[in-house]
């Protein structure tokens, strides 16, 4: 039952082609056959099978009823180990569940396991995980992207139809692009952050990674909705993107950004981008050039704000109450120093140091405050742009998947540029999607659609129409080298 979509699984369950139990057993068999991918940190086999036995699916059931879903390992799942890809939380069993887990549980889906990820979601290649590299199913030894690398890998390999991810600077869209999948980060505040282990609170947002835009809409609708436990949660009803797939969004105006220097990309990437624009036009859209004057400040702005917030958010891991505690500690100070030195990896330490520095007395105004001001300017740029266009389009990432250990090993900022196109929508809090639109060197690449606030329906509707016209989302990985 590999490579099925949510829709196909639902059809199979409703028409009794297979039972939930058979489906779940088969899913674990597939996962075990593909252990080499390393996309799961822990599996929830016993609970999932017990739950499968209880779920009966009819045509009135939720579309997610009985559907296996992989949870990124930063969503707290009660009684199920939640590591955040870190040694720090290697043995952390949360006493409560995240809002996302509660919502998916209520919809009837089955949590299969927890997916591998960059440590504390800091990374773009899944190489910072304490639990090892994750292979891109398209080519062994190549990265799946990050930080939701395990999530993208599990869906791309066809083990599960859908996975949850989180996106602080591109962590849903970039791995979706590198694995040939569709993923959406909704408007900031659409999905409650309750129980989602924080990296950078003002940027973190959950979202789905699936094979198709249609599946993303089903999962997104189940994840969204107001939650009083998160004061940044938008006081709105859950999204209706699935029913809105049928709405006619006519004559959409689509903007391409002057300042995104697409000319600097490879010839193949440019060709793919232009071909996709032609498909957009064939769908009735018009293409317009727009300017986002401050957009090129996105990466430096992000790498001040995100580390600042992370340096504070990660202060709670001190070896006192939960998480890794050093056995070498002799006094309070060495308890802190040793526990944190042993528990965190290099990238996390790097960002804590950057964040601590930019918040320090004497540097706050020059860095953090300035970055917040630039963030405001970037937001304003988008607000102006959305007066002229309905959607903004760009490549999702500068290149296709790369080999383990080839980017950012000498200069970490090289890897930070992976998020060049994705970061600005986190800074502005805008919804953005990535979907596959072709191949470079035999590896999938993605195209990004950014919408105005709360326009998830428009984005998914347009992506769905693109997928009705194209076949990239149906391509199955070649498992080269496995």
């Amino acid at each position, binding site marked *: 039952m590999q490579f099925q979509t949510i829709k196909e699984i639902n059809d199979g369950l409703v028409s009794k082609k297979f039972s939930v139990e058979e489906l779940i057993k088969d899913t674990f068999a597939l996962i075990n056959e593909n252990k080499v991918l390393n996309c799961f940190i822990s599996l929830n086999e016993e609970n999932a099978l017990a739950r499968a036995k209880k779920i009966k699916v009819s045509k009135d059931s939720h579309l997610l009823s009985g559907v296996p879903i992989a949870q990124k390992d930063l969503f707290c799942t009660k009684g199920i180990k939640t590591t955040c890809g870190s040694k720090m*939380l290697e043995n952390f069993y949360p006493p409560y569940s995240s809002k996302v887990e509660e919502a998916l549980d209520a919809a009837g889906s089955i949590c299969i396991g927890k997916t591998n990820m960059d440590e504390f979601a800091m990374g773009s290649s899944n190489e910072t995980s304490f639990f090892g590299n994750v292979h891109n199913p398209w080519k062994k030894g190549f990265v799946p992207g990050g930080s939701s690398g395990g999530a993208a890998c599990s869906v791309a390999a066809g083990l599960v139809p859908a996975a949850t991810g989180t996106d602080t600077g591109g962590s849903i869209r970039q791995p979706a692009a590198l694995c040939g999948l569709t993923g959406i980060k909704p408007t900031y505040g659409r999905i409650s*952050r309750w129980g989602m282990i924080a990296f950078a609170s*003002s940027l973190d947002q959950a979202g789905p990674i699936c094979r198709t835009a249609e599946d993303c809409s089903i999962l997104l609708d189940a994840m969204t909705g107001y939650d009083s436990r998160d004061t940044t949660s938008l006081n709105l009803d859950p999204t209706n993107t699935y029913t809105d797939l049928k709405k006619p969004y006519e004559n959409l105006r689509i903007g391409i950004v002057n300042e995104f220097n697409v000319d600097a990309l490879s010839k193949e990437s440019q060709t793919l981008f232009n071909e996709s624009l032609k498909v957009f036009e064939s769908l009735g859209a018009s293409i317009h050039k727009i300017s986002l004057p401050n957009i090129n400040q996105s990466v430096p702005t992000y790498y001040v704000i995100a580390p*600042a917030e992370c*340096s504070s958010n990660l202060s*709670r891991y001190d070896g*006192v109450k939960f998480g890794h505690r050093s056995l070498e500690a002799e006094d309070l100070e060495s308890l802190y120093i040793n526990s944190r030195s042993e528990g965190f990896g290099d990238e996390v330490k790097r960002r804590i140091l950057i964040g601590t520095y930019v918040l320090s007395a004497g540097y706050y105004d020059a860095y953090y405050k300035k970055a917040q001001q630039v963030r405001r300017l970037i937001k304003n740029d988008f607000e102006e742009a959305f007066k002229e266009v309905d959607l903004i389009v760009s490549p999702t990432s500068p290149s296709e998947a790369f080999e383990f250990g080839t980017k950012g090993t000498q200069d970490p900022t090289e890897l930070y540029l992976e998020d060049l196109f994705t970061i600005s929508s986190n800074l502005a809090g805008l919804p953005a999607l990535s979907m596959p639109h072709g191949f470079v060197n035999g590896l999938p690449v993605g195209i990004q659609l950014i919408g105005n606030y709360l326009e998830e329906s428009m984005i998914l509707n347009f992506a769905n129409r693109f997928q009705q016209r194209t076949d990239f989302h149906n391509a199955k990985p070649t498992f080269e080298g496995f």
Partner: protein
Amino acid sequence: MSWEWVIGLEAHVQLSTETKLFSRASTSFGQEPNTNVNLVDCGLPGVLPTVNKNAFYKAIRFGLAVDAEINQTSLFDRKNYFYPDLPKGYQITQMELPIVSGGKVEIEIEGAKKIINLTRAHLEEDAGKSIHEGMAGTGVDLNRAGTPLLEIVSEPEISSAKEAVAYMKALHQIVTFLDVSDGNMSQGSLRCDANVSIRKKGDKKLGTRTEIKNINSFRFIEKAINYEIERQIDVIESGESVTQETRLYDSIKNETRPMRSKEFANDYRYFPDPDLLPVMISDEEIEEIKATFPEMPKDKFIRYQSKFKIPENDAQIISSSKNLATFFEECMENAKDAKLLSNLMIGDISSLLNKENIEITDSKLSTKNVSELINLVTEGVISGKIAKTVLEETWDSGLSPIEIVESSGLKQLDDDDEIERIIDQIISEHPDQVTAYKGGKDKLFGFFVGQIMKATQGKANPASANKILKDKLDN
């Protein structure tokens, strides 16, 4: 050389909300360690704070009472530092935009009034407690973690330890009357840090200041500040200079001493808390708070005199304490004589409270029992003298005065025939005194009254006894 001192206080007032500032855990005091703690209080990965609006309302009440500006948009910031009893590694506080700006508090020293201006008052969460006693290592109790505090910062306008105490007492009065805090200092509901510096009289420039942390009684405030002033004078007069530092007051040795530098040498890296949106307070909310504003001491002082006709001095004492005022008003729902009540409260009841050094709310005295006692006197069931005995009994046992009077036979003797019988017997037993009285020794009347009271254990109705005795002796 003659010196003057400059003192500014940072008072920490624990707000009397049912639940914590950012979680729904209870704030009740004295529970088993780590029982008033939920997921948010222990800062588990993935939890988020939500704002307790009641804490804001209490802060606003305080702001309105001291004529301050209420910031209708206020913001929370993170103060980052590591400590075992600080679960998140940062404290949520208000730095940039506190809920209350400015304001003033009036104090009185030996009849002279003075205004102390406030800089600001902001909301913040309390930390937990580290416990070192009775265990091998250090324990952490998070019951207190997240309890709402209002930090009230004064301008450096306080010029003596006495003024500092008067200022803290004034704050205590305001926060207790407004039901902003229970003001219980022994439980830490009101404590303060004092910034102290000295300068030559007439100098404009402020001297180097030290900060004395966490003083939790009026007495210690006075002692700690006076010690610190003397210490600074000694330092300067011996030719050295004062070091800017944080000090702790040791009440046992009556001295201040520097804290270890590690305990405070922090760059707190304040920044706006991204988990909390700015808190907006509407005009309507402020109007509602104004509309439910409780009566303050000044108004009570006037009302007690006009409505209850109690003496000015009694009204002054009762109205200035939230606990006494509440007790008095509750008694007056049933008590039939306000003057008798106020007299009892500032007399016998006050001395009992002072003797045991407790608040009236911590005693066994109930308003029901005290009003019952007052009514027993006004109805002539017992005499004022017996009332004192009954008060002591109800103070000790908490029993109702009616029960006490009945079970111990303290009821006033009103039966004129019985009184006459007793008087007849006394007269017959003291023929010499009767003769002397009749011979002009009027003072002996008191001797006979004394004999009557002795024979009746003080229960004879004094008016009746006087009248019958006079009739008997004069005829």
